């Protein structure tokens, strides 16, 4: 099962390589990884999606905690979170298809951000499910290229 780990780390050079090196040498599978500075510029947040059973996730968490630069590891998989991914797709679109795609993308609240002679670039954000649905809906037109950013998550505030 896929787990999402929110990892706070020291914003030092070399930290990313320590974390990715740990995954590589212990044979853990990273599905996605996003790193960015937090509101405190001395701390970065890594959002890591990793695939594995409970045992592996427990080991991943412990090994991450063991890295000196790691401040906190939080498994947010079962928490109430907002998850977002950013998608860019270049899709075949002759003039007749352009309107149809625009309509379709409206439903997903995705946007067309570039128009070429025979193609469009669609931009969308959403959780993984929505991103998959958009990709599926564009497949019949012929997808030329997909670029996705990793998943970021934030735990919802108390209601």
């Amino acid at each position, binding site marked *: 099962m896929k787990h999402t780990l929110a990892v706070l780390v020291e914003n030092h050079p070399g930290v990313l390589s320590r974390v990715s*090196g740990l995954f590589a040498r212990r044979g853990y599978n990273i599905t996605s990884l996003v790193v960015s500075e937090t509101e405190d510029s001395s701390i970065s947040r890594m959002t890591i999606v990793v695939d594995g059973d409970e045992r592996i996730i427990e080991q991943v968490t412990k090994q991450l905690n063991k890295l*000196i630069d790691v401040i906190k590891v939080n498994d947010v998989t079962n928490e109430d979170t907002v998850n977002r991914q950013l998608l860019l797709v270049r899709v075949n679109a002759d003039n007749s298809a352009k309107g149809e795609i625009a309509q379709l993308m409206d439903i997903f609240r995705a946007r067309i951000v570039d128009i070429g002679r025979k193609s469009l670039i669609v931009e969308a954000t959403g959780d993984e499910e929505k991103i998959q649905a958009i990709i599926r809906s564009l497949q019949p037109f012929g997808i030329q290229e997909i670029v996705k950013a990793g998943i970021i998550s934030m735990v919802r505030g108390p209601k």
Partner: protein
Amino acid sequence: MHINGAQILVKALEDQGVEIIFGYPGGAVLEIFDALRESSICQILVRHEQGGAHAASGYARALGKTGVCVATSGPGATNLVTGIATAYMDSVPLVVITGQVPKAMVGTDAFQEVDITGIASPITKYSYLVQDVKDLSRIVAEAFYIAESGRPGPVLIDIPRDVSLAMEYYKPCEKVDIRSYKPNLKGHPTMIKNAIRLLSEADSPVICTGGGVINAGASLEVKKLVEITGAKVVSTLMGLGSFPGNDPAFLGMLGTYGNHAANMAVQNCDYFLALGMRFDDRVVGNPEKFAPKAKIIHIDIDPAEICKNVSVDVPIVGDLKNILKEMIQHLSEGTSKPRSINYPHHNVKIEEGLNVPWVLRSLKRLAPQDLIITTDVGQHQMWTVQHYPFNRPRTLISSGGLGTMGYGIPAALGAQLAQPDKTVVVITGDGSFQMGMPELGTIAELDLPIKIIIFNNQVLGMVRQLQHHYCGKRYAGVNFKKTLDFMYLAKAYGAEGFRIENAQEVPEVLKEALGNNKFTIIECPINPEDLVSPIVLAGDGLEKMFIFPG
């Protein structure tokens, strides 16, 4: 007053109480050696950087204090790698200092540039590439703190040449505070309660001492716990000496090359208390068949070791000494009861003759109680840990986790410098000896009265034994075809040399060597056909021990 970075480094090391540095020079550490010249720290010139790291490790293990070594950039740094990895696997506190090319040249494939922090990242607890001379004082203090606290281990400080040259004030680091590193020392009270309750209910408890008992200095607590509970004691290789090997409660080493009684006790016990150990595959054999009837309680300072290889019933993370004290306090309130562990087991018979167990038995008779033994890796090592009773902590220094041949001689060098009043003996094989040889020069130069016993079987005995078991006795790449004259070698290094020819001479030679206060090399021929016995083969549970005759 402004001083250069190298001088700041040396001052910071002095402030950490460093007395000895094992080092090998080069262009990137010129300033560091220059600064050491004026320091109270004694700089030992080793003959190979790997030997420097191993010597620092032997020093640390004999003394319970962080070992320090230094090497130049590039090949100096890469020569340290095996030493660092050996220390990492056995949780030995080291601070390793390397020179680096100047910052402006880092990343240009400059002469003698390697990314040593990158190379060493999986085998160090932490590593620093110093960017600014202003950080140096703090980094040194942090490095020692990280190396020594929690689960000890090696820390690397890589210092670019321009940082060594840069001028700055030395400001001692007052206090180390690393927000992301706070080892947990106090065990969870509920877990400790569970461990105690299960122990008082148990009929046949076994306690296993790991290297963590030695690191935590918890030998007295283990002894006390055994007295109160009547539990039996077994040990990992790394834990040997933490509980007296001559105590009636002690059953020997556990594992695939363990003592039969120890393995049988563990496979039959109903309570297994693991103290500061990591359930290495050589300790547990097949993890699925390990201690099948037992509730397993695991106390360790490193949370990542809990449930890594074997799942446990009661995990306790924290400082072993504190936790054992707490357990003892509760147990002395009358919860213990008489125990019995009944299981069949086999005692290995030692035949008089030129074989390692028998020579070791003679050595034990003649040696002082606080004799320090370092070993290399191979059959001789397994015979040593099976047959030599280690009665005190820090009297066995052997590469357990990495199994590094070439460790014994440099480790003895470090141990002898750490404990100048004790006798240090290296037990080695003819293969390992030839890997550790460079440091003979250092030992000779320092005139250290180390005794090296080479058990010469003219083969890489342990590998030969593995080929015997797993390759249908097809032996490949294990025979040394040329007979070497180790007595000439002893002479070259100014060491006293003895070649034992028959069993009658053994006590006499050992006695003389132990009393001569000189660097001594003893060669003892043994039969290449000798097998370590009993052993557990790959995939089997610990109870399935093969016993070979002889």
